[in-house]
Structures are given as structure tokens and as C-alpha cells.
């Protein structure tokens, strides 16, 4: 459960070394890295953004247009060579590895992830496309193996689900995975419902009795199959236990398949990160948004946040902006251009709106607007239009950075996590120097 720390009674001002603005993957990772380095941290942001996250973590997959890589590290080398503006050009491989390791270790006891050291892995998405990625929740890992072996596999869905069709997946993949079968079953006790929401099912399966009832319905269907695949809704807070118990009951390895939003694994990840950080180590203000960041003469930042409990302010020595792109409101697009709304930072962007998008959504070259964003120096300090750092103590990380089209290059989580660590290290270094 997420516990929002109530606003302090005596005053609405919080003091911290670092204010992280934005609670998506970048902001959460940055808060983790900062806490691990004994930097007192306040995290502000709307957590709804993680509903959109699929839960799988890409590192680096495609570059240039349409070329897929099995080895993400080779791909990153190529990106550094070809695109000096890409955030990966500002970080070393050792730092990227360290950042992934730190997140992965942190999650291990809460929401374990799996990866194949050094290479991308392939899993199947809910529309039946094979997809390469880097780290996947442990609950999806058997899907990677089942696809690799093209093992006889049954994919299940439930009557009343809208965004997931087991039959679609099996039918779409019939050429490359002939051993795939599908079946729709009624989720226990859901017969009277017209619609089944993944979040509700996930919460129901957190209780063992419901898993037993579900397994009883599945058991007769699994005689000739080696693996069983489900939409990603096997438990909300207890997904590992849910999968383990179903595997025991069914006697088969099982796996989850990532779905479009609302995405249960995205919510799990958010909650695992935030709760794992612990309320004693960090101040959060979720469900809120920073509305203003200013700096005092004494070189402290004052971040104003608006929430249901009124206004609060955070006074901090450093600010890390991890507000994301358009969906996260880190960037705002008007008819005449793109701006950064919180501090009016300089945004690198195509000359006019004419150049934002290509004529086909699926153009392999990707849309230039997705490379618009904030340019930084090697310490992830934002730059003015003339290339000077805007302010000491101000840092930027994640998808708001210019130069990385994460949707096409498949580098979203990799850039988020690696640049978060790079920025936090720069903050740590700057703090020590003072």
C-alpha cells in the first residue's frame, strides 16, 4: 500500500538536500539512488503515470531505423558513435550497469526481475507481436523460455476482458509458434459481471482461496501443454506468490503477458519502489504536482506543490527534474512550439510544427518531435540556448532529455535509470565539493 505522508502539522515546509520532481521510473529510481547515498530526499509527483508502464524494462533495442539488436551494449556503443546528443553518450557502460544492478537488487525481495546477462530477450505482447526487451518481471520470465523453445503452450483469457484475447495471440503467432493454443474461461464467481477489470482480478488473486478456485477450472485444460500463459494480472501485491501457487496447483510453469494500460505490472512496480523506499527515509508527496520552482538568494530551491491538502513547499539544495514528456506534463506543446512549463528551460526542438511528425505513425525513422527535449552537460545540468548550465544545483534526467526517441529505440527504462544515477552522482559530488 502507498502511504502518503501527511503534511507536517506545524509547518508546510519540508527541508531536504534534494527535491526530485516527477514520480515515474526516473524519479523513483533517482530517489532510490539518493537514499542509498544518504542524500535526504523529497519526491514529488503524480503516480498515475505508472499505470501506463508495461512493467518490462527496455535497455536499448533498435538503432538505426528498424535495426534490432540482440546485444544492447553493442547497440549503445553504436548510438554513442552515431548520436552524440543521445543521453547514453553522456554515461559510461559501467554506470549503466551499476544503475540496473542497484534497481534490480533493490527490487529482488519485493518484485523480482530477471534478465539474460548481456543480451536482450524476446517475449510476446498482448497483440501477439514478439518483442525484445532487457529486464522482465520474474512472473513473465517463463514466457521468454516458452517462446524460445516454441513449447506446447496454452494461453488463457477470461470472459469479460476487453484488451486481451488469447485467441488473437495464438492466431497471430501460428506461423512461428504452432504449439500455441488458446482458451477463454470464466473467472470464478465473475459470471454476473459484464466486464472484468485487470486490477480487480489481480487483487482477488492476492488471496490463496481464489487461486485454488481458479486452478480448479484450469486443471482439466492443461494435459498436453508444457507452459500456461495469462494476461498480466496474477496478483497485485503478491504476484510472485500467486504465480508460485498456481504453478504448484497446475504442475506447469506459468507466465504473464504484458498488456496495454491500465497495466497491473506498472502499478506493482510503482508500489514496490515507493513502499520499498520506506516512509522514514524519504518525504513523498504523490497525487500532487509541483507548480513552481524558484531559487532564493541563499542558493536554495523552493518547490511549490499543490495537492488536496493545500500548498506545501520543499526547500532543497538541489532539484532533479524528472517530469517526463508530454504525457507526464514535463513538456507542453502549443501550436507555436514546445516549452518546459515548470522552469521555462530551453527545449531543443524542430524549427516548426511542420517538422514534428512524419506522415505515417509507423515510419521506422520515428518522429522528430520525440527527440525534442532538454539538452544537458555531462553532469546532466540543463543548458541554455547558448550552451551554458542554467543554474548550479539543477539537474534533469529521464525521458524529458533531448535526443532519445525511447519508443522507437527501445531505451526507455535504460535511459530513465542510468541518467537518474548519473544525475544523483553529480549531485553527490557537487555536495561533497562544497
Amino acid at each position: 500500500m502507498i502511504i502518503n505522508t501527511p503534511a507536517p502539522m506545524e509547518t508546510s515546509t519540508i527541508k531536504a538536500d534534494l527535491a526530485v520532481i516527477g514520480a515515474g521510473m526516473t524519479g523513483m529510481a533517482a530517489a532510490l539512488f539518493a537514499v542509498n547515498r544518504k542524500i535526504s530526499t523529497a519526491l514529488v509527483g503524480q503516480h498515475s503515470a505508472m499505470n501506463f508502464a508495461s512493467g518490462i524494462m527496455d535497455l536499448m533495442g533498435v538503432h538505426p531505423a528498424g535495426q534490432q539488436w540482440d546485444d544492447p551494449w553493442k547497440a549503445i556503443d553504436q548510438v554513442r558513435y552515431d548520436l552524440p546528443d543521445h543521453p547514453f553518450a553522456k554515461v559510461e557502460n559501467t554506470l549503466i550497469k551499476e544503475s540496473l544492478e542497484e534497481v534490480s537488487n533493490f527490487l529482488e525481495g519485493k518484485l523480482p526481475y530477471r534478465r539474460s546477462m548481456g543480451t536482450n530477450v524476446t517475449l510476446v505482447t498482448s497483440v501477439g507481436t514478439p518483442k525484445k526487451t532487457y529486464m522482465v518481471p520474474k512472473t513473465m520470465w517463463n514466457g521468454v523460455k516458452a517462446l524460445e523453445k516454441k513449447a506446447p503452450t496454452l494461453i488463457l483469457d477470461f470472459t469479460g476482458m476487453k484488451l486481451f484475447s488469447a485467441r488473437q495471440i495464438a492466431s497471430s503467432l501460428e506461423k512461428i509458434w504452432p504449439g500455441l493454443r488458446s482458451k477463454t474461461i470464466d473467472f470464478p464467481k465473475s459470471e454476473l459481471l459484464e466486464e472484468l477489470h485487470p486490477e480487480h482480478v489481480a487483487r482477488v488473486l492476492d488471496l490463496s482461496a481464489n487461486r485454488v478456485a481458479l486452478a480448479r477450472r484450469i486443471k482439466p485444460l492443461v494435459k498436453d501443454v508444457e507452459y500456461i500463459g495469462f494476461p498480466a494480472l496474477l496478483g497485485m501485491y503478491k504476484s510472485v506468490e500467486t504465480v508460485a501457487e498456481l504453478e504448484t496447483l497446475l504442475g506447469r510453469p506459468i507466465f504473464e503477458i504484458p498488456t496495454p494500460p491500465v497495466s497491473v505490472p506498472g502499478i506493482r512496480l510503482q508500489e514496490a519502489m515507493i513502499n520499498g523506499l520506506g516512509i522514514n527515509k524519504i518525504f513523498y508527496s504523490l497525487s500532487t504536482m509541483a507548480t513552481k520552482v524558484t531559487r532564493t538568494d541563499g542558493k536554495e530551491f523552493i518547490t511549490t506543490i499543490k495537492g488536496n491538502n493545500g500548498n506545501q513547499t520543499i526547500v532543497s539544495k538541489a532539484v532533479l527534474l524528472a517530469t517526463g514528456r508530454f504525457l507526464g506534463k514535463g513538456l507542453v506543446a502549443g501550436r507555436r512550439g514546445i516549452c518546459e512549463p515548470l522552469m521555462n528551460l530551453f527545449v531543443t526542438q524542430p524549427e516548426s510544427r511542420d517538422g514534428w511528425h512524419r506522415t505515417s505513425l509507423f515510419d521506422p525513422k520515428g518522429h522528430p518531435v520525440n527527440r525534442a527535449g532538454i539538452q544537458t552537460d555531462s553532469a546532466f545540468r540543463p543548458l541554455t540556448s547558448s550552451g551554458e548550465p542554467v543554474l548550479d544545483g539543477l539537474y534533469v534526467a529521464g525521458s524529458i532529455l533531448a535526443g532519445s526517441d525511447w519508443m522507437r529505440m527501445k531505451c526507455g527504462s535504460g535511459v530513465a535509470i542510468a541518467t537518474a544515477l548519473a544525475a544523483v552522482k553529480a549531485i553527490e559530488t557537487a555536495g561533497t565539493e562544497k
Partner: protein
Amino acid sequence: METEVLIIGGGATGTGIARDLALRGIRSIVVEKGDINAGASGGNHGLLHSGARYVSNDAGSARECMEEADILRQTAPHCIDDCGGLFAAVQGDDENYVADFPNFCEKAGLDTTAIPPEAAREMEPLLADETIAAFRVRDGAIDPFMLSLENMAHARALGATLLCHTQVVGFERQNHCITKVWLEKTGTGERFSVEPRQIINATGAWAGKVAALAGATTHVLYSMGTLLVTQSRMTQGVINRLRPPSDADILVPGGTVSILGTTSVRVDDPDRIRPTVAETNLIVEQGSKMIPSLEQTRYIRAYSGVRPLVSQSSGVGDDRTVSRGFVLLDHASDNLDNFATITGGKLTTFRLMAEKTANLVAARLGNKTPCTTKTAPLPSTLDGKWTEPGIAPSVWFAKPAGKKDKILCECEMIPESTIDAIATALRNSNETPNLLTIGRRSRLGKGPCQGAFCSTRVLAHMYNQGALSGPGGVDDIKAFLDERWKGQQAIFWGDQLVQAELTEAMHCGLFDLELAQPGDHGHDH
């Protein structure tokens, strides 16, 4: 394949002719290279003109509009939102034109009522504070898709045939007659021929190209107009800028949305049109002088149509000064006895265009039955039903509790049963149900999400129903989303750009659809 009449073009005119002929007992085949209303018939305001727009420069067209609009109000009321309209001038507009307007209307025989600007703003609260004059007119809104689908449905019930995705590729001619027309299925390339007694070229902007194929000449100019769709309905009635016809001077309600346009840009090729950023900027700037909130509102789509303008003079000057009247050519001067071209005109006058064309062809066939479309009611069928905004939700709401099926398109509230009904109707007319064809016959993908979610849900549903199998779903969803993209690219700013990012995050970021190869995504990557 034999038929009395082959009609080329499945827009408002072609489908209107098919119905007119069918009512006279003449059988026809309509061939359409795309789908119903794929050209200008589907790329317009959906304005049922009072005629007042043309009073200053084309009184004949103005009068024609007025008369035809009245006929449609009587015969096809289910296709019409008789919402009324206003002409409004704002500070800075030509005051002479404002002063002359009532006289122009009177000369053309149109009813207009001057109303004080304050009263106009009470009727339409979003009108600019700077409104200086206003007149009430009998404009309305008409659903062009429902109209063509219903015309075609009625014609088919009376014996006509519709062949969509079928293109004319050649004519065989003996002396003064075309004896055979070669057709090609655009999807498969399969060729076959028809031997009609009469051929009608009702291809709108493509009339010149088709006539040339038959060895005849028709000079058509292409004037592209772009329109923007707002997320919600802004006004009760139609709002016209009270000035000589110009850019972005009409805002028409279209059920739950409003449509703002248009521009007039001469283009060389009707097959290569697309709304541009420059046009959308111009439309928003101009439109917001009339309705200031058009500057802030969310736009969900832009689209373009090509007006076919038949050049009868030197073609100098603004395309708006070229007559919006229609042209019926009998091609006698091309030494052709059984070929006719109908083009130009407006949606509002499509029935009259159909009547004149059918008169010519009926006379050539020796059929003396008179035209009845002035009075014969247009039956309401299921074919056109689902294009109407709000119809799917109202049908769904009317179902008893416990019988309500799942909503697949949440923006426009389209449930599974509606998708199934449309799929069945498509199969009954030899069309393949897929996201594009279902989208053309419903509001699917036309809400704020522009297909991001509903495409996935409908695809999943169609697989579950057995309506789809194999890997084709990936091509289907890509084609559908690209069609939606085409209409949004020029209006990606504000909330709609946020939507675009979400769409791309889902379909490229997660599903990797941009990496899927057409035909098979069986690449084991």
C-alpha cells in the same frame, strides 16, 4: 456481367443516381475504387446550405441550395440536424458587405432575419464580444455518410449493385459507343468486365481522369479544402462569418462535435492531399475571430476534401469565384452516345444533380418514368444508422440491466453488439469486416483517443468472435491507426499531442508494431 447503367463513383452523387434510377425501374451497378464517400462527399462540412453563403457571388447556386435543402428536410429528415444558423460579422469585417447582405438574400429569394448582436450572443454564447451584426438563416447539418449509405441501401433494395474497392481501368469503344468497361479489384488486382448500355462518370474530382480513360474530355480543377474537428460541439447551430466566402468562415455542428473550415488551395492531384500545418494554423487563427474559444479548444482531427471545379472560363482568380454549380456533360462533342459526366456542385444539391443525370440517361434508354426523389421518402435502414454520433450509446442505454454488453470504443460508446451488427451488414454486402471498414460505418476511433484503445479492443473481440484469424490483425490495426494518424498530424499540439504520445507508446513502444513486416509478422526476431 451485364447491367443497364454503370455508375462510376460511390459518393453522394453516384449513390443518389443509383437510387434515382432504381426508383424508375432502371438497374445499375455502382463501382467505387475506395469506399462509400471516400472523396469530397466524405471530406466536407456536412453543411445543409441555406444558400446564404453564395448570395453575393452566385445567386443561382444560392437558390438551388435553398430549394434542395427544403426537399431533403422533407424526404430525409433522419439524415439532418435542422439546427438553423447565423451569419455574424465581427469588428474589422467589411461593413459594406454587411449592409448589402440582406439585399443579396432578398434578391435570391432567401429568408433572413437581422438580429441584434446581443441576441445572437444569447443564442450562441461563444460568439465573439466583437460581433457587430448577425442574421438568422436556415442552415442545417447533414450526415453525408448516412445519406450515401441510405441512398445506396435503398437502391440495393430496388435491385442495384454496389462494388467497392473496384476501379475502372479501361473502356472498349466501338464507333460512338462504349461497349465494355474493364474493372479491377484494388485489393487483389483481379480483372473483370461489364457491358453496360449507359455509363455515368460521377467521380467528382476524378471526373477528368475517368473521362480521359474513355477518350472524352472534362476539365476539372482541384480545390482542396481542409477542415478541423473539435472534441465537443461548440454551438447549437451553424455559424458563418458574414463576409465574402473566405478561409475558415464556417463552423458546423456534427452531432457531438463541431467542424471548422475550410480553406481553398489549388492542387494538382486529387490523390495526394493532406491537411497541412500551415492550413490548420490559418483555420484556427481565422475561426477564433468569430468564436474566440476556437483558439483554446481541443481539436481531434483534420481532414481534407477536393472540390471538383469545372473550368468554364480561363480559370483566373480565386477558386471560390468559380461557380459552385454542377456540370452535366453528355459528351456528344466527344462523339460518345452512352457516356455522361456529372461533377462540380455541392453536397446540398446532390439530389438535383442525380435527377438531371438520371433524366439524361433514362431518356437515352427510352425510359419515360419520371423522377420521384423530390417526394419519395428515403427509408431509414441499418446501413447508415451507426454513423450518427450518439446513436450507439442511446441504443446501449435502452437495453435492460443485465443485457448490456461491453463497450469497446469508450470515447464514442460503441458496444460489442454494434460492432457485430456492422460486421454482419458488411458481410451481407460482400465487404470484409475490418477496423477500417467498420470505422467508416460507425464512430469507431473518432473520439479523443482516435483509435488508440478501441482498435485493440475491437481487434481482440473480432478474433474472439472468429471474424478474424491468422496474423492479419497486425496489418489491420496498423492501417487503421495510420488512417487516424493522417487526420491528426496537422493538429498535434496540446492534449492531442499527449494522446499521440500515448498511442505511440502503446503501439510502438510496447507492441513494436513499427517493426512488424506487412503480410506476416512471423519474423522470429
